[in-house]
Every structure is written in structure tokens, then in C-alpha cells.
């Protein structure tokens, strides 16, 4: 542990992934080498990762280039009403009505609120990193299909080459019923 904390003060870019090489070292991976010597050798002007044999990619910034946005610059926190939670649960089919779940949701929204600080006036929204690529157009010739057996094998329930589904969308129980269900399950 102490070696580890020492390393943190000497070099600033120790990543969590280097725990494994650390273990290797402790198990005698580098025989005949003193940990101190090892650190000393590595303490050059170029910041490198402590226990990695490869130098850092120069494109990765050496120091964090961002700071958390101060609270006063953010818009007012979003109010999460019971209706909204109900709607979100219905859309995502995920129950998160617990205290933890709601806190997590609030934190996530707050984190995303940081985007509002950026001035995007006059900038076209990007909705795909593929926006510069040409969309490939396929020729209108039959190249696939005819694999009914293979596909049907994937389903638990089939009837004469048809997939089987329930008669309709099973309606989600009403909010009150679901709250009751959750209470029971939280036991």
C-alpha cells in the first residue's frame, strides 16, 4: 500500500489498471530490482505510467484539462414528479422507484445539465460520428433469407414456423399496483 501511495505523489498519472503490474512486482516479477531503483529510473521529465512498458500516447493530455462546472452556472435542477417517474418506468420497463434509484436519476440529470453551459448557437448538431461518411447503397438483389429453421430454433415457443407471442402488449400494472409490488419485493 505504501509503495502505491508513494508512487502517486511522485508521478501524477497512475491509472487503476496498473494495480496488476504492481502485484507482479510484489511477486518478484522483476527479480533483482529494487522498487526504489525502479521508481528512480522512471522519474524522468516525461511523465509515464508507473508500471507500463509503453510510453503514454502523446495525444492523451498529461494533466486533466477539465474542471467541474460550478453550481451557479448550471440551470435549476430538474423537478422529477411522480408522473415523470411513472412514464420513464413505463418506457424503459425498469423499476427505479427506490430512494437510491431516484437519487441516481437526479445525479445523472445534474451531470448532463453541464451541457447547457456550452454555447451552441450557429453550430449544426452532430447526431452521428458517421456524418462525413458516404452512405453505402446496396444493389437490389436477393442475398439473404431462407433461414426459417435457424431463426425458429432461437425461440422457446414456436407454432408451425411462426413465432409465438402473448395476445397483445401485456399492460403495465397501474402506478399504485406497481408501488405495492415494489414494496413487497423490497422485503
Amino acid at each position, binding site marked *: 500500500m505504501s509503495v502505491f501511495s508513494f508512487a502517486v505523489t511522485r508521478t501524477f498519472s497512475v491509472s487503476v489498471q496498473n494495480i496488476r503490474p504492481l502485484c507482479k512486482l510484489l511477486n518478484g516479477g522483476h527479480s533483482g530490482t529494487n522498487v526504489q531503483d525502479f521508481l528512480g529510473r522512471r522519474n524522468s521529465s516525461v511523465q509515464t505510467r508507473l508500471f507500463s512498458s509503453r510510453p503514454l500516447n502523446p495525444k492523451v493530455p498529461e494533466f486533466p484539462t477539465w474542471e467541474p462546472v460550478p453550481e451557479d452556472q448550471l440551470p435549476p435542477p430538474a423537478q422529477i414528479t411522480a408522473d415523470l417517474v411513472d412514464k420513464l418506468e413505463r418506457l424503459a420497463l425498469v423499476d427505479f422507484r427506490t430512494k437510491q434509484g431516484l437519487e441516481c436519476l437526479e445525479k445523472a440529470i445534474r451531470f448532463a445539465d453541464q451541457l447547457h453551459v456550452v454555447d451552441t448557437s450557429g453550430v449544426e448538431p452532430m447526431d452521428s460520428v458517421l456524418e462525413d461518411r458516404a452512405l453505402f*447503397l446496396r444493389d437490389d438483389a436477393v442475398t439473404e433469407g431462407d433461414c426459417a429453421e435457424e431463426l425458429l430454433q432461437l425461440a422457446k415457443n414456436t407454432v408451425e414456423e411462426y413465432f409465438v407471442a402473448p395476445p397483445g402488449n401485456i399492460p403495465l400494472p397501474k402506478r399504485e399496483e406497481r408501488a405495492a409490488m415494489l414494496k413487497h419485493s423490497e422485503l
Partner: protein
Amino acid sequence: MCPSSVLQSNAPQHLIGVVGLEIHAQINSNTKLFSGSSVRFSAPPNSLVSFFDASLPGTLPVLNKRCVEAAVMTGLALNCSINRKSLFDRKHYFYADLPAGYQITQLRRPIAVDGVLNYSLLGGKKRNQVIRKTVCIKQIQLEQDSGKSLHDDVRSQTLIDLNRAGVGLMELVMEPEMSCGEEAAAAVRELQLILQALGTCQGNMSEGQLRVDANVSVHRPGEPLGTRTEVKNINSARYLARAIDYEIQRQIDVLQRGGTVQNETRTYDSKSGETIPMRDKEGLQDYRFMPEPNLPPLIVYEDNASLPTGIEACQAVVVQKIREGLPELPSVKRDRLVQTYGILPEHSFTLVNEDGLVEYFEAVLRATKKEPRKVIGWVTNELLGHLKLHDVSVSQSPISPPALAELLELQETGHISSSVAKQVFQEMWRSSGKTAPQIIQEQDLGLVSDAAQLHSICQKVVDSHPDEVRAQILHSYS
């Protein structure tokens, strides 16, 4: 006729219908929109399904060039502006026949916008006036079709066939500018003719190649639009008119009784002629539209000059080329028939409206010296009347064009009178295969114009009725 077309300057403001159509036209292509599986109407269940159509993980959409060309062609025929750059989006909802849980569509920037559909109705007192109307097309977008669900209520399950899942559709959204079922049916008929002429959609409503959903509301002219309902499950143009008219009347009745119209989805029951609320539709859906991350923007090029360097020809959709390749549209055809044959616009309208009738008409003209204006009546009245009466198509007509031409020749040259000709026509229809001359001879319907023969007939009559002749002579002398 639609109530809105009747002048009501002093009458109290009546409630009138407002109809907007959403039409899904299945693109006539060999393969689906985003996969290489085949498109066919009937095939063993799930045999036309690729891994992508079944939404197996790891599959990606690959756009079919033919579908893009079909959408551009349709957009041009409907006077739309083609968007150089259009985008794909995901529309999310849960249903068993939509394996991915979302449908790839074009919401934000569809391929074509702001078009116009010109259509006509036969109106007036005698239904022989061609009334021209227009409806604006808000947009045309490319989207995926869903699979088919077969409901098995006995075993309380639904059977899913994904053969149709992923087939390319063009959704045409029309502005709510129509006011009754008749207008809607006429507009859809015109659209069917246009799509069939272009070859982009076979337009068969009963086979599901053309699906029409109607958004219907009522209001008083000048006031804001009322709450609308969506009417689905309309399987033919005829039912479309009835369903819309029923829904308009139902909404008027509700309002006049002091109730309110619910914003809901209703299905049309052809047996009862009524619209019934559809279960399984929970209030307002949130489709969580998001850009389709797997597809870059779709770019179409105006002409060859605007193609980027190095692009392969098979990767470019050029609007100019498609515009030049457009076939003759129905409206142009109608005008051409009027010009060429000197027939009236309403006749031309009737000819083009019926599958195969133009070809029939022209075949008759080739076999007779009679003027087109004299032939048209036989085709649009006698022939079409019989076809409609027996619910038979032109191709199934028991009287062929040459046979009809023969009959008309006989009438033209004076062998039979007009009324007899109609009689012979009916006989030819009933006993298909018999020619006009055969029937005329069998039933001795021929006109006699030989003077000597006429003389001998008259003589025979006179000779066989001596009393009447004497009475007549006496009468004429008194």
C-alpha cells in the same frame, strides 16, 4: 357531394368534416429496405427473413438503392422538393411484430417535402363534370414495415410472421385539406394510378401494398380544428369513403348531443360499416425519437455535374436522371387521349380510371372505321356498365375488342339499328364466343334495306290482311 362544396352563404354554420390521410405504400423492389432478403406477398412463414430483419445482435442496416430511387421518383411525380440530404431516425415502441423494438424512419428530414397531388372527381347533377381538386403533400419518408401478427384468440396467443418486417415503405403524409369520404377515395385512386404508372408501388389495397389511415375531425368553417381520431384497417377505396363518412357523422352526432370527441384510434368494421375504438392503445405514445446512429445522412445529387469526384456510378442517386426517366403520368395520359381522339374530359377520366380500359378502347378503334367519339360511349357506358354489374375486370370481359368492333361496324354500315345493336351486345355478353353476325342471323335482327325485298314484304303484309286494307282505303277516301 361534400357539404363544403355547396354554397351556404346565409345558412347557419354547419359542422363539416376535415380529413387528412397518412398513406403507407409498399415499395415495389426485389429486396427489403435495409437487408437483402426477398420481398414477396405470399411465402412460407419466416422464410423471407434475414438476421437483420429478425433483429439478431450484431446486424446492421444497409440501405437499398432501389428504394431511394423509388422515393425520389414518387416525390418528383407529386411535385415535391427532394431533400439533397435526408436523415434516418429510430421510432421506439414495443410490439411483438417489431423485433428490434424500434422502426427506422425519417422524421426530422425526410427525402421529399411540400408536394401537391392533383386529383379529380366526377360531379355535378349527372356526375359527368370533371371537378379538379388538389391536396398538399407534407412529406414523403422512407421507413421499415413491421411483421404480421395473427391473433389466435382461442389459445390466447399471437403468431408472428416476419416476412414483411423490414420491407421498404414510403409514407405519404397529406395535409388535412379534404372534407369527405368521396374526396379521400378519389385522391387515393389518383395516387394509386400514379404509383402504378411509376412502378414504384403496385397499389393493391387488398394485398396491403397500399395502406391508408384517415385522420378525421369536424369543425365549423373558420373555427379551429376539432379533436381528431385516427381510423385504421381500411382495406379498399370503397371502404375508405364509407369509413370516413361514418366517422364524420359519428363525431357530428357526438357534438350535437353535447359530448366531446375523444382523441383515439378507431378501426373500421366493414361488416357493420362502423368505426370502433381499438383496444391496446394506451393514451399518447412517447416514441423516443432519436437519430439512427448506424446510418450516415443520405445524399442525393441533383445532376451529374454535382457529383463528387471519384464516386462510383452505382453509389449515386441522380435526381435529374430520374426526372428524365419518369413515365407518362395519368393526368398527362388523360389530356393526350382528349387531344388525340377528341373525346370529352369526363370520358378520358373514366377510361384512365379503369385498369385496361384505355388499351381496350384503342384496340377497338384499330379494328373499326368508326369515329372515336362514337365508340367511346359504347366503351364507357355499355361495356363498363356490364363490367360493373357483374363485378368483372376489363381483362375478364366476355366481349373482346375485335368482337365489339365488328358489332359497331355492322351498326355503322346500316345492317342493324342502334337499339338492336344494344340488344345484340347483351346477347354477346351472355353467350360469350358468339359473334355479332351469328346472333343477328340467328335472331333475324338485320335491317333490310333492299328495295325489292322491302316491297315483297309489304306486299305480303297487305295480302294477308284484306279487311284492314279495305278499311284503310275507305278511311283515306272519306
